[in-house]
Structure formats: C-alpha cells, structure tokens
C-alpha cells in the first residue's frame, strides 16, 4: 500500500479492540468504526464517481461489505487501510456492474456534496480542484484520484483496474492536462 496511506494509519489498541468487538458481532462497535471512517470513505466514493447520490449509496455498500467481510480482516494492516482498499474495490466493482453511470454528466446539484461541514474554512482553490476533478472523464478521474490524491502507485492502480501500467499513466497524463486546463484562471 502506498506510503501516504500508511502514515496516519498506525493501529491503536483501542481501535484494535473496537475491531475485535465488531468481529464478534457487536453492532455498536461497528457503528464506532463507521463514525471513525465514514468521512474518508465518502470522500473517496465522491471523488471517484463525481456523483453525490451515488457516493452515498456506495458508502453504504462499502460498510455493509465491510461487515460481511470483517472476519477476513486479520489485523496485518490498519483497519482504515483495509477499509480503504475495500472501498476502492466496491467503487470499481460498482462501476463495472453499472456501466451506464460511467458516462453520467456531473450536475451542479452534486457539487453541494462537497460543501459540507468539515471542509476547510477557506476552500477556494480546493473547491475549484474538486469541481474540476468531478468533471473529468471517469477513467481519468479514477486514476487521478487514486494516484495523486490517495497515493496509490501505478502498479497498484493497474492491478485494481486490470489495465496495463502504460494505460494508467496515459490516463493520469490526460487527467492532469484536463485539470490544468480547467483550473486556468
């Protein structure tokens, strides 16, 4: 997993305990895991889909899937890292199964999803970038979010997508060019 993901994911004893309780079927413990991780999962879903409503659905799917798969979590990485990887798989799987949505045009309503509590007090530049990311073509957007925002390496993204590394690089190049054009003020 990319360094960027691992840095702040050092598991703590309390978090370990919460995960163990959830693995034993404690719904309250799982709700705690949800509360601790939902913002990051939602951000990933939102950026990868560019669609607020779809991101909500996928976020719910991620946590339901996590509950179903919780027994397979062995604690070798932080729970948040495991969950993040699961979220990427759910989003990519959802896109493959729901091909029609890949071409969905980003509507202005969806931009409201970015304007939630917890955003920086002066989002300005970041908001412009969020909007520009949301308007990228799906393939370019996914690669940009995973590589430049989430810190995945090309090899990991290629494996997740089932693509050649060269294709990923081409998508990233395209995404960066489109973003720079969009951000020219």
């Amino acid at each position: 997993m990319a360094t960027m993901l691992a840095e702040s994911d050092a598991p703590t004893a309390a978090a370990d305990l919460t995960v163990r309780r959830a693995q034993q079927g404690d719904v309250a413990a799982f709700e705690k895991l949800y509360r601790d991780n939902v913002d990051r999962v939602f951000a990933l879903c939102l950026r990868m889909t560019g669609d607020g409503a779809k991101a909500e659905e996928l976020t719910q799917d991620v946590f339901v899937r996590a509950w179903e798969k919780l027994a397979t979590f062995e604690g070798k990485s932080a729970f948040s890292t495991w969950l993040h990887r699961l979220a990427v798989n759910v989003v990519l799987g959802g896109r493959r199964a729901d091909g029609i949505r890949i071409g969905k045009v980003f509507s202005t309503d969806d931009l409201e999803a970015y304007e939630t509590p917890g955003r920086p007090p002066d989002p300005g530049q970041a908001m412009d970038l969020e909007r520009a990311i949301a308007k990228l073509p799906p393939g370019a957007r996914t690669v940009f979010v995973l590589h430049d925002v989430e810190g995945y390496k090309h090899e990991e993204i290629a494996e997740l997508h089932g693509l050649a590394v060269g294709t990923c690089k081409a998508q990233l190049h395209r995404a960066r060019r489109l973003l720079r054009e969009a951000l020219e003020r």
Partner: protein
Amino acid sequence: MTHEHALERLDDFACGELPDIERVRVQRHVEGCAECQAEVREIQSLLAEAAALPRGIAPPRDLWAGIAARLEAPATPVLVAEEPAEAVEETKVIPFAPVRRGWRPPTWALQIAAALVLVVGSSAITSRIVRQQQPQPGGPVALTPVSVNPAAGGPAVQGAADPAAARPVSTTTPAPVAGRGGTAQTAFAAFRPAERSYQTAIADLQQALETKRGEMAPETVETLERNLRIIDAAIAESRAALEKDPNSRELTQMLGATYDAKVKVLRRAVEI
C-alpha cells in the same frame, strides 16, 4: 534527449517516478528548456493542490441508519427488486401521469415509480411472510432460513469458509440480535435507533418539501401525496407484522427498505 521525449516523461519526472538514469537525462533537458520548466512547475503545483485536499468529506446526511438496517438482515444484499413483477399484480400502483404519445416521464418520476414498485413488492412479500408465519395445522412452519446470526458467531460473511458459521433460524426458536453493549434484543428492537434516524430524516425532508409546495404543480403534489400514502401504508403494515413477530429479520429488512424508499422519494421531490 529531444524536447518531445522529455515532454512525454515530465509527468513521471515531476513526481519523482523516473529511474535514475532517465531522470538525469530529463533533468538536463529541463534545465535548458523554459517550456519544460513551466510545464514541470504547473504539474508540481497541481500535485501540491491534490495532496492538500482534505482526506475526509462528511456525507450530507447520516448514512448509518441505512447501513444498520442491512446489517441485521440475512447475508443477501438489500431488499431484492426481483420480486415486484409478481407483487405488482397483487397491489395497484398509482401512475404519476397519463402517458402521452411522445411524452417521457421526468427522471425523478421514474425514480419514485421505481421506489414504489420496491415498496409495493415489499408489502406483498410482507403479507406472504405473515401468511407463512400463521400457525398451520400439523405443526409450526419455519421461516426462510437466515444464513448467519451475527450475535451467535460473528458478522455475516458471504462465502465464509466455515459453513458451520451459518445456521438456520426458525420462528419457533427466535434468535436474539446483538444490540448495543452486546445485550440480546429482538431484531425489531435493534432496528429502533435506525428507525428513529429515518423518522428524523423524513421529518426534515417533509419540512423542506413544505417550502417548495407552492412551486409544484397541483397534480404533482396530489400524486406525490397519494404515493407517499402507499409507502406509509407499507410501513404501517411492516410495523404491525413486526409487532407480532419482532425477531423476523426479513420483516425488519423490509421495513428498513421501505423507510429508505420514502427518504429517496422525498429527496427527489425536494430536488425537483
């Protein structure tokens, strides 16, 4: 290295992903090329902006209720939409508007219609389950087996390696559901917190809808209200069934899905 070759490698160069030998060659070119220098600066500026984006974004609404409703359910995901074909025949669905030649219903109307099909389907399934649960002459009738009871052996795991982890649950031996603090409680009781969240969300949306009511066409308001009454009836039916069988996960799941449908209908109506 030619300018074109350097340009092709600037993305990797800017984020330090080139092998050493190639990096040195690109570096030499960039030092003498104003265009490539500007290009590298722009890429690095974009990378800095991307790295500075917040790692988390709070969803606009609390999603836990919808998740919790699915956790108490069997390992099958969400309320199935496969049933409505048969169910629709059993219950009348009120169309949103007469279909005119060449007229296509707006997206929100289709979404609401889909939600209604789901609700009507769940209502029909509820009736079927309740009928199945009626005492039969000759002995008790078991409910459809539930794959895993989270309280008994951990969370439901699809395709779990240990088939013994899954055990059937029948109405004659109701299995409690793990609640907060591990206290055993019925499926219906475990759903109550999620139900309160749904009710809060619905009240908020209904309040928001009130402010838009004046802008909506009277026929739209009338149809919306009529369809909301169908959903409310389905909720009441599921709740009544759960009062009689509070351990039924199928009924709990349907109640959650019906609340979810109502939230979706109201959200779409507010967004019109």
